[in-house]
């Protein structure tokens, strides 16, 4: 029996490249598991093209049994947008970190959202630049220590944590799906990602899912502290839930307008 038991990896995971290259306790593994299950559930392995960025996300370049393109910093979005424009029948999944999405690639994100490009963007938010050794990112929490904010992030000098999904939800045209999930709630996360991919399948518009993720290596946290940071610290600044759903378009639009000064 012991010989027969096999890991319950999503079908689309590539077993040959496991264990994957991410650090112990890294949130990427959890997000990519949720993504893999969503791909399995929608049965889109044949059509999906996975793009990853520079930064830790690049370690996923051989993660899936999916055609995969590892791109440049923050450029995953334009590469897959270019692909999708040329081959609309493909399903484009852009996977990147908060640095790629909100700093160096922010212009691509904003423009892609405003064009309502039919791609699915998944952003792992771990509050810092991980691959480069833990520098401050747009998402770093106030007071959080990083290699470039060694005394804690001073919001007076460096701003407050960037709210990606809120930004996207504000500027996205109708048809967009926007949500923020967390690796602490995998069932919900898979559901969000699946809804995002469905949105692309239905050709309604862009889908954007930020995921509160874990980086024990650069956070210097043990497992208990990791969960505490995600569930108690990050959630103070980054509320989890759906921000835009095409199904609730009317209501959302009204609320949206209501927020205008």
């Amino acid at each position, binding site marked *: *029996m*012991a*010989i027969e*038991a*096999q*890991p*319950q*990896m999503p079908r689309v*995971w590539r*077993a*040959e490249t*496991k*264990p*994957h290259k*991410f*650090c*112990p*306790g*890294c*949130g*990427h*593994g*959890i997000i990519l*598991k949720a993504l893999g299950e969503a791909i399995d559930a929608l049965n889109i392995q044949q059509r999906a093209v996975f793009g990853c960025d520079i930064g830790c996300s690049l370690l996923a370049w051989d993660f899936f049994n999916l055609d995969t393109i590892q791109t440049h910093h923050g450029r995953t979005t334009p590469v897959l947008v270019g692909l999708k424009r040329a081959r609309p029948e493909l399903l484009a999944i852009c996977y990147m970190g908060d640095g790629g999405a909100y700093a160096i690639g922010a212009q691509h994100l904003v423009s892609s959202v405003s064009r309502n490009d039919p791609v699915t963007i998944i952003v792992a938010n771990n509050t810092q630049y991980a691959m480069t050794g833990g520098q401050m990112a747009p998402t770093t929490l106030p007071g959080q220590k990083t290699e470039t904010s060694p005394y804690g992030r001073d919001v007076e000098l460096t701003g407050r944590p960037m709210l990606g999904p809120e930004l996207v939800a504000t500027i996205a045209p109708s048809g967009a799906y926007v949500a923020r999930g967390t*690796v*602490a709630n*995998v*069932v919900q996360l898979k559901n969000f990602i699946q809804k995002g991919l469905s949105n692309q399948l239905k050709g309604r518009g862009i889908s954007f899912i930020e995921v509160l993720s*874990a980086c*024990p290596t650069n956070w210097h946290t*043990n*497992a*208990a502290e*990791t*969960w505490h940071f995600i569930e108690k610290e990050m959630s103070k600044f980054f509320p989890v839930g759906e921000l835009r759903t095409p199904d609730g378009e009317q209501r959302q639009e009204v609320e949206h307008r209501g927020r205008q000064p």
Partner: protein
Amino acid sequence: MSIAFKAITTRDGKGIFHLFPALCKGCGLCVEKCPVDTIGWAKQLGAFGTPVVEPGHGRPCIACKKCQLVCPDAAIWIEKQAPQERSDRLTSNDRKSR
């Protein structure tokens, strides 16, 4: 799946706990998420030469699968054990009181 992973299988409470040492990096996320504290460190070493996890350190497994869900490496598979096959609760309690 063209490659096979070897499992360490432990029956505990309502669950059959399959742990794949070749995948387990010993991050401990599952340890903290277990509602019955049954997961703890084993002597066996895993993918990165760090201890892997095993059940039997707390109250019996309730097969909620939270550990499996949060494992970033798909190193845990929980099967629900049929009622008649469940392991002896006392054994688990004994361990806890040890």
